[in-house]
């Protein structure tokens, strides 16, 4: 699952909490990903529409647009989106599953699990362009 040296896989980290953004960037970059950041759902949507990311790692509770709303807006074509939440409502979780989020991680999470989920999400997809999520 290790990314190749020549072509780094890209991850967009979206979280309104600066500390979370920064530590995730550091962890993912140390793991060999090329990481971009967005500070809220609106910025993330703009970025994701202009650029293709292998994985979007996104918080659910955010200003402007929630992670679930961004997920819904980016439905086609679907990037692999991993959602994070501190305390999500049942309704949001259901919607996230409906829009085929790749996984939902509950904060605080084990880094080993995070890296495992991101690596799975970044792996080349099958012919249908979709694999069942982990969460």
């Amino acid at each position: 699952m290790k990314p190749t040296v020549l072509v780094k896989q890209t991850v967009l980290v979206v979280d309104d909490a600066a500390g979370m953004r920064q530590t995730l960037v550091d962890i993912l970059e140390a793991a060999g990903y090329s990481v971009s950041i967005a500070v809220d759902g609106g910025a993330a949507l703009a970025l994701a529409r202009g650029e293709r990311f292998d994985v979007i790692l996104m918080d659910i509770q955010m200003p402007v647009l929630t992670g679930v709303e961004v997920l819904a807006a980016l439905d086609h074509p679907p990037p692999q989106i991993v959602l994070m939440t501190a305390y999500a409502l049942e309704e949001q979780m259901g919607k996230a599953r409906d829009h085929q989020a790749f996984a939902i991680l509950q904060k605080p999470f084990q880094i080993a699990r995070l890296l495992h989920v991101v690596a799975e999400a970044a792996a080349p997809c099958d012919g249908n362009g979709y694999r069942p999520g982990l969460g």
Partner: protein
Amino acid sequence: MTSIRIPTYRLAAFVVVVVIVSIASVGSLLIRNAVRSEEHRLLQERASEIGLILTEAFSGLQTQMATVAGETQLNGADARAFMASTATLITAQPGSSTVLADAGTDPVRFVAVIGTALPPTAVGPADALIRRALNLRAEITTSVFDEGSAHVIGLAYPVGVGGLVIYRQLPLDPSAAGSATSGSQPFHELTVALYAGPTQEKATLILTTSGQVPLRGSVAVASTTFGADQWLVAINATSPLVGNFATNAFWLVLVGGVVVALALGALADSLLRRREHTLALVDQRTAELRDSMAKLELAQEQVLRQARLAAIGELAAGVGHELRNPLGVITNAHYLLRAGFEQQGGNGLMRHLALAEREVGAATLIVGDLLDFAGPREPVTTPVGLHELLDEVLDLAAPPSGITVDRDESAGCSPVLADRDQLRQVLLNLITNAYEAMPGGGAVTVVVREAPGGVELQVTDSGVGMDQETAAQVFQPFFTRKARGIGLGLAVTKRIIDAHGGGISVTSAPGVGTTFRVDLPAAVVGAAP
């Protein structure tokens, strides 16, 4: 000895009856005495009237005798002339004799006799009477005595010439008067006995209208003057002089009083019983009302408590949510620090890092409890192996220094049917609680074994322990005796165990330690995926 309880209303009714009957009795006695007194007064009046009438009648008799004496005196005490005049003056009665006696001789000699023949001389009482009449001038005198087989009365009156005395002797049959029963006759309501003497002696009885002498019952007597003698008349009434109604009035009062007393007693009994019943009903209603109020208060308290818990839950959810982000950042930072220290080989710093990681673990557990309390969710159960889960928990919450964990899993056990995340929360709570109960170090013993219908898990510490009162409250939300913690761990633990259909109990002794025992249903064999 058994005591019979008499109802108050019956006692009160009894008192009413007794009081009224007493009043009626006293009243009837007073009436009876008044009636008797009046009866006696009337009787005495009658006796006096009869006495006066008899005195009148007797004076007529004396006049008759005086007339005979006068005639005899005028005729020069001639026996023939006496007989002629006397025959016109005195109607002869059967068995009676009228005699001209000469008391100048001894014995008294009968000079002339009209009517029934007498012996020539007087003897005994007649002699004494005639002599006595001679001594008492101008007065008639009487005597009752027996002569032979006859009972007679003698009357004597002095002629005023020498020793001559007019003497009459009549046979007496005292009962011959019979009883005057005719309503039209005067004094018909009386029984009369007339004595020729001052006392009621049978020997002097002249006449009576009663079969029995002396008279019995209420008797009134009156004196009557017969010449030189005092006679006595005694009467009693054949029927009450005051009338039957007055005589029986006291019975009426007594019986009426008793009847009224019984009626009032029954009325009092009924009213008082009704009153008692009403009071009992009021008491019952009051008790019911009080009970309802108590229930209402309890319900109100519960509503308030739930509202408060809901508010706390809302706050907890917000705080939990806000805390999970910083905890996430710290966890991430710890990861980066550990990677850096591993590269640089800083062992001392690693110790500090481990401490920081443990504290984050504790904070994460508290947040988990808070969120579970605020928004409990139904368990999503799968078969869970307790041994593996225990490994993971002890990895996440490693024992602090000075504390050892002994695991007794020799018996082995089948998987339990549980929500893995919730059960991990339970184990984390029990294990960290055990750690915190032993600030000076000690041993935690974890026993997992089969139990009827499921699996039994025991977590025992050798810590400070609790008294009964504390142990009884440990499962209540926000109850804590620890220096840190918010008192939700065991409440959430119990909620989760209950939601799993299991049970949790605690036994503890101060200074000895505490054991929590959890029973969980076993997963059905073959249900495991």
